[in-house]
């Protein structure tokens, strides 16, 4: 068992009390509504906030229903000595589930799921960041899932992109993540954890989960993950649903960025009078 000997390790298989109680609840699939009462293609309420980690260059916090994710961006900082010289910058992502984030206790050390998640987030963000703008340096993104109530990976992608924008890292576009759970005939956008970990059920056919990272204003997909078993047509349909979900989150992200910029970045008039008069004839 890998473990950190300096920590007081909690019991390996501890479970929260409600694990035993509420587990018995069943899905209410009748009428196409989901357990929390929303439609198949409805998103959960989204809350976004920037500037939550004071030490970081930029940071962001995201809630999607009960899923809570925090991302901190550091840099551009110096690349470590062992790396080779590159004219391009480097992006490093680290995804971590907090020990208390899931129903089952997570360990302090990164496990395989977290390592995979880090790679996917990196893959989603890398095409969006102007890496040539900071040669020889790297930007570190640390994402912590505080509570996992489904679609944590999608939330991590969105949150990390918002953190990067808050840090003032040059980007071609922001990235928005969204997931779809396909369960037989049903296609659920932005699944909660109970929809995600559905034990294999009665109906045969397609079962899987699709996560998409989208550059919304360029309309390009930067990351695509497909778990499970899906027919080609279903998969295409699921990806389309994901993209429409991403487009639904994008205005919220944009609003959050605009308001946080207005709040935190002093505008040009305060800096000098000269530039504001220049700007006047350009503004419509």
């Amino acid at each position, binding site marked *: 068992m890998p473990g950190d000997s300096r920590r007081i390790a909690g019991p390996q298989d501890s479970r929260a009390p409600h694990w035993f109680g509420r587990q018995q609840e069943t899905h209410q699939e009748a009428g196409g509504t989901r357990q929390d009462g929303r439609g198949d293609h409805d998103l959960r309420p989204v809350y976004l906030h920037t500037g939550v980690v004071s030490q970081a*260059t*930029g940071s962001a916090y995201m809630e999607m229903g009960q899923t809570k994710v925090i991302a901190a961006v*550091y*840099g*551009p*900082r*110096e*690349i470590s*000595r062992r*790396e*080779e*010289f590159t*004219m391009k910058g480097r992006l490093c992502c680290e995804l971590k589930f907090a020990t208390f984030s899931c129903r089952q206790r997570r360990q302090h050390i990164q496990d395989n799921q977290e390592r995979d998640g880090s790679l996917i987030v990196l893959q989603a963000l890398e095409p*969006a960041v*102007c890496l040539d*703008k*900071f*040669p*020889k*340096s790297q930007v570190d993104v640390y994402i912590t899932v505080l509570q996992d109530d489904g679609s944590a990976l999608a939330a991590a992608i969105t949150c990390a992109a918002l953190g990067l*924008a*808050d*840090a*003032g*890292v*040059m*980007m*071609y*576009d*922001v990235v928005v993540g969204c997931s779809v759970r396909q369960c037989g005939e049903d296609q659920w956008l932005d699944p909660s954890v109970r929809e995600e970990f559905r034990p294999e059920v009665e109906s045969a056919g397609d079962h899987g989960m699709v996560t998409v990272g989208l*550059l*919304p*204003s*360029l309309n390009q997909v930067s990351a695509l993950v497909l778990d499970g078993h899906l027919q080609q047509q279903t998969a295409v349909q699921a990806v389309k649903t994901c993209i429409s979900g991403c487009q639904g989150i994008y205005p919220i*992200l*944009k609003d959050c*960025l*605009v308001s*946080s*910029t*207005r709040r*935190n*970045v*002093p*505008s*040009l*008039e305060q800096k000098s009078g000269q*530039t*504001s008069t*220049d*700007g*006047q*004839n*350009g*503004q419509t």
Partner: protein
Amino acid sequence: MAAPRVCVPGERLVSTADCESGRGTYVHHGYIYSCLAGYMHKRNLDGKELPIVEVIRQKEDAVPRIGSIVTGKVTSVSGRMCKCAITCVERTTLREPFRGLIRKEDVRATEKDRVEMYKCFRPGDIVLARVLSLGDANCYLLSTAENELGVVLALSEAGAQMVPVSWSDMQCPKTGSKEFRKVAKVQLQQE
């Protein structure tokens, strides 16, 4: 005037037919897009037909570029070179230092072959330098071969802040002893 427009990364600003792309923007398929979350503003430059569109954000990330003036603290001196930790690029303070290196031949413009490193820098000195090149994987290559560049702040052996007396000497106000430095002629920067 209405509040300046706030842009987010990836937002389409104007067509390239109307404007030229400036800082914080990029061109894609004939349109100028924003790279930053910040304020958009247009500038008319003399001799140019089209105004330049820029997106400005105060917290813009600064990394040393070729030709930029950096402020650093000397960390170690050897016979051939001097290492320093870059703490400022132009006017922005860095959150974390970058490693810089001043080679013996880049210390001053004249009598390059007679430079003695120990008579130019001491660990702890604050130096102004210009970035020569991005260097190797380890360090940025810096140069102090200009009158305005070199040591600006130094402590004497007695621990007092020294006063420059010539281009190669600094004097301790406490003990009156002179120490050798590559002294910078500090210029007042106009606001």
